[in-house]
């Protein structure tokens, strides 16, 4: 009896170190975010205010939604290269139709989300690599967007622009939206019982299928929800820029992937963290501002942003190797 107890206690103490490293690994993007904020505030103490936060994180809202859309797809072990082009298309539709013909705009959104689900179905039923299918989709989205709106233009509905510049109490809108998105994602993906099935389908689809679930249904659902989240990204982006532009968001595709991986996701599927993804998206969007504050010349900024991403990811990899 005492033998068993000793074994159990030995087991739990040997678990403590990996658990700490695990927590550190999850917390790393948050730490990176805090470090960046501290640097910015030490350079410009005035930024440490409601309005400062508002300006710093204003542009992160669409990226948060785009990253969550990407996270849904990565959860299944796929990747979505059409995410950015899709967001661009949504800004075009929103700027063109939402003000004058809201019904038409809604119909367009629904058709596009259904198309997303359809591509999910195609990827599943034909066993195609998602990277190829979504690359093809990205050209389709871009093509439609350019046909609709050959040059940037149109106008965001007044209410949408007003909403995006709304200043709610306590925290800026961007922080509220990020927090709500993270909370909702956490509840649905990490906590709910259906979320466990979704993550299971990413980790071992055969096992989930054998337990009697329809993996094809799961894939269609997940792709449709990725489409919905990308729609939200497009809507909020239009509200910020107040116009539509087919080429406004190509960078979202890979920034979204970066945010998911930064936030603790893995390309193998099944391992994603909505909270981590949101923090990752905030980190990546703040990296640009940080470099401006550090007075890095614009020509160097993209490269420097890459260095930051690389450093944080390398830190994660090192920590996860330690934890093993």
């Amino acid at each position, binding site marked *: 009896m005492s033998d068993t107890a000793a074994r159990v206690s030995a087991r739990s103490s040997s678990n403590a170190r990996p658990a700490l490293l695990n927590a550190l690994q999850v917390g790393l993007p948050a730490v990176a975010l805090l470090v960046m904020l501290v640097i910015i505030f030490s350079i410009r103490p005035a930024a440490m205010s409601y309005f400062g936060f508002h300006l710093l994180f204003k542009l992160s809202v669409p990226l948060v939604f785009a990253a969550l859309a990407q996270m849904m797809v990565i959860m299944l072990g796929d990747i979505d290269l059409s995410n950015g082009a899709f967001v661009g298309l949504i800004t075009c539709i929103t700027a063109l139709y939402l003000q004058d013909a809201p019904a038409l705009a809604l119909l367009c959104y629904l058709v596009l989300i259904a198309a997303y689900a359809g591509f999910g179905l195609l990827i599943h039923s034909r066993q195609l690599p998602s990277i190829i299918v979504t690359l093809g989709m990205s050209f389709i989205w871009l093509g439609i967007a350019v046909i609709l709106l050959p040059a940037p233009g149109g106008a965001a509905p007044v209410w949408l622009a007003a909403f995006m510049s709304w200043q709610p109490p306590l925290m800026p809108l961007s922080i509220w939206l990020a927090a709500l998105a993270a909370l909702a994602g956490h509840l649905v993906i990490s906590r709910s019982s259906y979320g466990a099935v979704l993550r299971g389908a990413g980790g071992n689809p*055969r096992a989930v299928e054998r*337990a009697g679930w329809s993996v094809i249904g799961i894939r269609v659902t997940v792709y449709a929800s990725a489409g919905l989240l990308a729609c939200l990204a497009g809507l909020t982006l239009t509200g910020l820029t107040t116009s539509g532009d087919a080429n406004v968001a190509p960078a979202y595709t890979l920034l979204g992937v970066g945010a998911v991986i930064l936030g603790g996701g893995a390309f193998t599927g099944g391992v994603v963290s909505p909270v981590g993804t949101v923090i990752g998206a905030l980190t990546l969007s703040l990296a640009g501002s940080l470099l401006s504050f550090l007075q890095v010349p614009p020509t160097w900024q993209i490269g420097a942003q890459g260095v930051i991403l690389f450093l944080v990811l390398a830190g994660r990899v090192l920590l996860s190797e330690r934890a093993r």
Partner: protein
Amino acid sequence: MMNDPTPPKKDAAETGDADSLLIEVRDVRKHYDAVHALGGVDFHLKPGEVVGLVGHNGAGKSTLMNVLAGTVERSSGSFRLGGREIGAWSAASAQQAGLRCIFQELSLCANLTSAENTRIVHRPLRGLGWRRRARQVIGPVLDEIFPGHGIDLDRKVADLPIGERQMVEIARAFTQTGIKLRAVILDEPTSALGHEATEQLLAHIRRAAGRGIACILITHRLNEILAVCDRTVVMVDGKVVAERPTAGLSRAALVELMGSIERPRDRSAGKAASVRAPVIRHAGCDTADLTIEVGKGEIIGFAGLDGHGQRERLRAMFYAARRQREALPGAYVAGDRGSEGVFSLWSIADNLTIRSLNALTRGGMISSAAARKLAETWSDRLKVKAPSIDTPILSLSGGNQQKVLFARALASDAEVIFLDDPMRGVDVGTKQEVYRLIRAEAENGRSFVWYTTELEELTNCERIYVFREGRAATRLEGNAIETGRILQASFGGEHV
């Protein structure tokens, strides 16, 4: 406590009658193209009965279980469950009917915790507090089967050692929520369990049977069958060949039943094999592991149950042969065509000549004329059925693809050819052609080292090594190569 997701109600009443059959299948067949995995099987299971299922590799045990569990669709045959005729069958309906299966390869989601994995198989575990309820479902079962297991239910399965994963998977199959558990199929459940856990599992199977839960146990460890099963079913080549009450059955009798079909042999018997000096000597990892000797022109077979170290040894020999300076050139014919055999986008000719590029090079470039000639010669000699040698390899049938892989090895300068169970899933006609070719090439002085999971192929060999637990344990030569002795050696030396 749980809401009830509509189990078929009327069956519950029927199974109350102890004499009625829980599962009854008649003349079930399953074929994949030309390959017959099941050739008309009759099988039945009573409530609370424990049935052992034994047979050599590829006897169709796992296929039969997959048919019952709904993960493989039967090609024909009738299937009655609790007296009701079943038409289309699926994994979901098997779950609904209270039929669970522990598959040979682990079917837990490694990225989830044990509690979350429990939720995957139990639909009622949803809504607020599902995590707590899931722990309450799996925890007590785990404690009952494996007392003192010490598994943290909130730890990711990927972080558990393999033995504990197996325990979780077994316990999960015995959990119950809204649907009454009626039968559990255990396919090699003890492969990763230690001695103590195995004993605990076997005891639990008997306990479960006492509660009316039927079990089907598939294992190569015959002692386990003899210890817990009421009845033993023996399968050979996709058919049930024997069915006996376990009481009074012995290990030897079981092994004999498995080898009951004696196959015709057409071996040139009496070849004085050991006279020739070996061209390869490959020492084992310890004294229990035999040294493998290959003579010029010999066909050496690797036998034993699948996954007992034959492939590893074959590869070790291949790489060892390559590393030696004055070694004979070797070639390796892969059994897993898709992942390590064919270049799927290339033509037959490109696939066939890749091993011979050095010989086809003229002044640093590949001579396409020489390459075509070589490809044509060998695809003719192996009678590859294709319109031309420029046909993409994937448009060929599996058997013809395998012929191209054989041609790749035979067309090369290799003097020792390593065969990694290459005839798996190939039709009988092709097999016979390839056997003839192998024997002809051996006459010409080429040596073959041949790992096969099919007993009849071993009759082509002059000497075989039977593998057990990762070691070449038994050496059989000449007329000693017969099904019974191979089976005896494969299953022998069991310590439980």
